[in-house]
Every structure is written in C-alpha cells, then in structure tokens.
C-alpha cells in the first residue's frame, strides 16, 4: 500500500526526520486559515509520481493566488488521478539535493540503502550517482554512515545524513515498509537538511499488524476495515486484459492462471478477464473456503456480459475434482434470488441474469476425477481432461457462438 506524500511526512515527523512546516488542505477555502507563512508550495496529493512536470505543484506568495492555484490543482488530474487533498508547505531554500531510500532487495533477501548526491527531479542524474549499501546483518548506524560516505559526504553533513538514514531505517523496520524514499533531501546554506518529498510503501502482507497504517488507506472501498492476513479478498471489479476479448479465465494459483492465459493467447484467443481464486498455501485454506471462492469467482466472471466462454482450470491437492464439480453444478443451478452478492447488487447486474450464461469449459486435475465427470455430465458444461485441448475447445466455442 502506497502512502500519499503528506502521510509519509507525518511518519517522518514522528521519527524526527526534518520536514517543512506544512498543512493539509481539503478544500481551497482551508487556505484562508493557513498557519504557515508565504511563500508556500501547494502540492497535489496523488499516488502517481511526476506531478511536478504535470502542473501538480505550484509556488504561491499570497492567499488569493493560493486559492486560485488550489482550485486549479484540485481539478487537475495527474495521469487520470484527481487529488482529494493538497499539501501546503513552507518553502525551503536548498543549496544541494540528495536522494535517499531504504528498500528490500528480494534477490539478495536483504534491505538495501540507496543514496545519490544528486537527487531531485532529474532522476537520470540521481541514478548515475546512485550508491548502494546492503544491510547484511542487524542494522547499526554504521551502515548508514557507510552509505553517506560512499555518497561523498563529509564533516557535519555526513553525520546529519547518517542520522536521517538511521531514522528512515527505523521506520522501514518498525512499520514493515517495502520502500521509504526521500527525494530530495534538501541541504541549505547552513547545512540543515529537510525532506522535501517522500514516498512510503507499506507491505500489504504486514498491514494486519499496523492498524495505524491500515487506517491511512484512502483507496480501499472497504473503508477502514482492519486488514488481516486472511485469504485475500477477491477483487470487486476485474480488470480488463483485452477489451475485445470474449473469454474469461478462472484458475487457482498465480502461476497456473498466467500459464493458462499464456496458452490461450498463444493459440490466438482473446481473454477479457482472468481471475485467480487463490493458491493452496494459505494457513486458513479449507476445501469449503476454496469452493466458496470458486463460486464467487464464477459469479464475478459471468456478470460480464461480453464473456462468451469461461475457461475453468483447477489443479488442486486441497480440493478434489468432485468438490469442484459440485460447486460448479451448484452455481449453475442457483436461483438468482438466493445468490449472495459479492458487492451491492445493481439493477444492471440483475438484468444480466436473464441473459444466457456463458459456456463453461472445465479442466480439472486432482483426485476423484471420475466422480466429477459424472456430476458435470448432468450440466451444460464441457469437461476436458487435457489443458491444450481445453484451450482449443474454448476457442472453438467462441468462434461458434460468434457466428
């Protein structure tokens, strides 16, 4: 989960990383009661980077200009995203700008400290100067000092930046972050430093043990429900792969879902949606849960009126083939009224129910295959044992339904 700049800066403030005096602006009128002196920067609070180039940051010197600028920024989408909040921030005169980050490197399985003596908006220059220190053992401030030295810092600035990195690492560790980044860390003529922009990504798997961070999720439509490391919720809306596609894919496990989609694409098929109902390694996983997710997944996919064929590919140790077959059969027989909706049921969706269901091509690997076969024989689904043949079957069906 990404944090917005102002949320990241609150975290920075909490651990003693210097940030400019600032104020959150929820509407332009808030600027009338601004507590920080002009000139200020008004900054669009969006999750996407590069807002500076796109007009999302403006320097203003008085209330009238500030309100006008706020109106503009509130109505300026950054790569399609409109800000809900702006940040008004005191200006800081920087003589030098540094880049600093703490991030987990998954291939060496250790946190790394990144730093560049050339931070700021010109990312290419920052990269050219980028230094990296691997935190191979338990962190101690000397790792931070090692980075600061490698960045070429000296004297008091060496110690001041070491201290900032140490605090960034403290946040990273205590809050289970995937990334904490300051760019730029500005240095003024007096040698004071200030974090002018910051980015924090919280690890989603760890959110369940950081209630305060979970509450910062402004994007979740579920609101501030406590994140817990339960089976991930199925998405409420499936993203579209190919808008012209007519095939939906439902599989279990990320690798298998991708492989199924790869096969379909290689064979010339056009998947519109794909859905992974989840792998088998969740500690709470029970056959009942997986069946439920299968049925919910079918419900989700079949809502899309454009889908002609749903290709189901379930390879499971937890779920026997007959249980999968029963779930499918149950799904097909359900009276519409008793289907428990995943989200609020809109009329448009109710309407879709009267439409004929897409054809289900079912491919199963696991125990009790013969029982599954018997169960599915009583349904209009098409059971195929071989994966390549299932793909071919799905394609044929689409073509037939098209014509």
């Amino acid at each position: 989960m990404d944090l917005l700049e102002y949320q990241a800066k609150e975290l920075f403030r909490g651990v003693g990383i210097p940030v400019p005096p600032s104020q959150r602006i929820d509407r332009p009128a808030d600027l009338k009661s601004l507590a920080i002196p002009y000139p200020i920067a008004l900054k669009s609070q969006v999750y996407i980077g590069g807002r500076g180039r796109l007009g999302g940051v403006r320097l203003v010197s008085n209330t009238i200009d500030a309100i006008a600028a706020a109106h503009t920024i509130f109505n300026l989408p950054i790569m399609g995203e409109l800000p809900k909040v702006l940040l008004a921030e005191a200006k800081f005169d920087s003589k030098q700008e540094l880049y600093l980050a703490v991030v987990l490197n998954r291939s060496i399985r250790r946190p790394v400290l990144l730093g560049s003596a050339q931070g700021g908006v010109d990312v290419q220059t920052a990269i050219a100067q980028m230094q990296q220190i691997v935190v191979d053992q338990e962190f101690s401030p000397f790792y931070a000092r090692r980075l600061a030295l490698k960045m070429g810092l000296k004297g008091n600035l060496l110690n001041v930046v070491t201290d900032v990195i140490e605090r960034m690492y403290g946040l990273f560790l205590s809050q289970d972050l995937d990334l904490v980044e300051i760019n730029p860390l500005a240095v003024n003529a007096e040698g004071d430093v200030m974090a002018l922009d910051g980015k924090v990504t919280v690890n989603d798997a760890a959110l369940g043990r950081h209630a305060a961070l979970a509450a910062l999720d402004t994007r979740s439509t579920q609101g501030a429900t406590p994140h817990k490391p339960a089976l991930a919720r199925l998405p409420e809306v499936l993203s579209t792969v190919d808008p012209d596609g007519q095939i939906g894919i439902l599989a279990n496990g990320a690798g298998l879902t991708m492989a199924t989609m790869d096969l379909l694409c290689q064979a010339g098929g056009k998947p519109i949606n794909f859905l992974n109902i989840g792998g088998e390694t969740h500690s709470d996983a029970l056959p009942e849960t997986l069946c439920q997710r299968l049925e919910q997944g079918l419900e989700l996919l079949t809502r899309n009126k454009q889908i002609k064929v749903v290709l189901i590919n379930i390879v499971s140790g937890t779920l026997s083939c007959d249980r999968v077959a029963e779930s499918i059969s149950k799904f097909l027989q359900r009276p519409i009224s008793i289907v428990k909706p995943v989200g609020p049921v809109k009329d448009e969706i109710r309407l879709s129910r009267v439409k004929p269901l897409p054809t289900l091509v079912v491919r199963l690997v696991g125990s009790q295959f013969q029982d599954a076969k018997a169960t599915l024989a009583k349904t209009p689904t098409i059971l195929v044992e071989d994966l390549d043949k299932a793909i071919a079957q799905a394609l044929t069906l689409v073509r037939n339904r098209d014509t």
Partner: protein
Amino acid sequence: MNFTAANKVIIQGIIEPLGASYAPLMQAYGTTVVAGISPGYGGRSLAGIPVFDMVEQALPSVGAIDTSVIFSAPYAVLDAALEAIAAGVRKIVLVTQGIPPLDMVHLIRTAEATETLIVGPDSPGIIVPNQLLLGIHPPDLYRPGSVGLISRNGTLTYEIAWSLTQAGLGQSIAVSIGGDAIVGSTFPQWLQILDEDDQTDVIVLVGEIGGDSEEIAAHHIAEAIEKPVVAYVAGRSAPRDRRMGHAGAIIESQATDFGPDVGTAESKIAALKRAGVPVADRPSEIPEIVKSLLQQPVKKAV
C-alpha cells in the same frame, strides 16, 4: 542433503486448517511425522500424531528432529521457525503464504548463521514420490522417476508434474522454493543439490515473471550445472504491473522510477536460452524436451 522416509518430521501449526488437513496425508504417504506443535494444544493428538506446545517439549520423547513443516498463521511463522532452529531443527519448509518480508529477512539471517535450510514461504514444499511428502503436493500427480522438478509456484508445479507423469516421466524430487517475494532457499541452491543427486538425470525449472530468480538461475546453470535443464516461464501474456495473486508476479523495480527490464518473461526466457537451456512454450511441451535430453549424453565436467 538427503530426503528420505527416515527423516523425522514435525508439523508446526498442526491445528491450523491447512495443517490439520495435510498432517494425516503426509503421514499416510510414508513421512515419519513424529509430532505436531501448536501452542495451547499440548497434550492432544491429531490423527494419532501427539501435539506439543513447543518443539523442545517433543525432543525427549522423539529425539533429534530433522525437518519441520510449518503451517502456522503468517505472523506466527517467524517465531515458530526460530523456535525450531533453537531446538536443533536444520531443515524447515514454510508452506504458509503472506509472511511479512522483514520477518523473512530476520529468519534468513538466522538460518544462514545456523546453516539451516529454509524452503518457502508460500510453498507446497517438497515431495519425493512414493517416499516423503513435506508439504501439500497432491501425491496422486507424482510418480517416482529421474526428473528433478524445481519451481517457485504451487498449482503450476502440480500441472507440470502431472504432464510428466502422464508422459511416463517420473520425478526424483519436486520442490517449490515458494511464491512470496522473499524466500529462503534459491534456484541455484536447488540446481546444485539436484546436480549432485544420483537419482536425478534431468532438471525441469519452472519460473514465472517478477523478480530475477530465473535470470540468476540461468547464470548459475551456465556456470556450474552439468545435468540437462529444461525451463518453462509463465506470464508471457501477463499485463505489466498487475498483481496476479502473489508477490512473485509483480514486476518490481528496485526503487521508484528505477525499473530495468529484469523480471519480464522476455528477459527470463532470453537469459535461459543464452545459458543453453531449452525453454518450453507450453507445459505439454516439457515432457517431449525432457525425453529428447535424456537421449543425449550428459555434459562432461570441464
């Protein structure tokens, strides 16, 4: 590294839903499951397996323990694994998915210091067909044989094992290093183990997009592996930057705005091909390639 039915195995998190379902299956497959561990449940038993509150409590009655398979809830896994290490266990399979990455960093540091093998997390574990099940592989899909199967996913591993089995190609061992972003044992480690394993004649490596494990594996194969390797990479058609269900499928970049091409299917396939590894276009192609490789003479040591 020996994985046989003689391994003394414990199951931590045996009362978690997944642990409770698989404990009897592991035992039925021939795995010597000597104890289950679940704090607060000491004194009970599950499918005839005695349950203890702590690993060290089991030691007096069962003696030294070789392997622990951990099904504990995600936030309890680090402690469970450290407890197992403190009790002298040196092989640990983490089935559970969703362990916070920094817990894994901590665990891996401790594992390195104590020379403990960590498989997973988010892994169906290890199966040695007809001998040993350390995890949740569906045994029906496997047969004994000479193909060593290494993957980083779950159900796709089963799919490929099944395609091998159907083609009459049994497996010497199948292991998934796990699908989470930070995992214990790596592709190079397992390539090395299987390269030295007498039971294995050919290695099948199953990768997917995200991270750089396949690129690193390719490098290692070119440098150090003598046995033939066949690879498959899932995710050629995946939309970039979309979550497919686990972190392994996110094409990650080192830090904001610093994203090289590493992690894409193209990068992985190219790296493997450069290393001389044939890459199957679809799972069903793998058995054919394996068969053709088995007919060639093995590369000689230089």
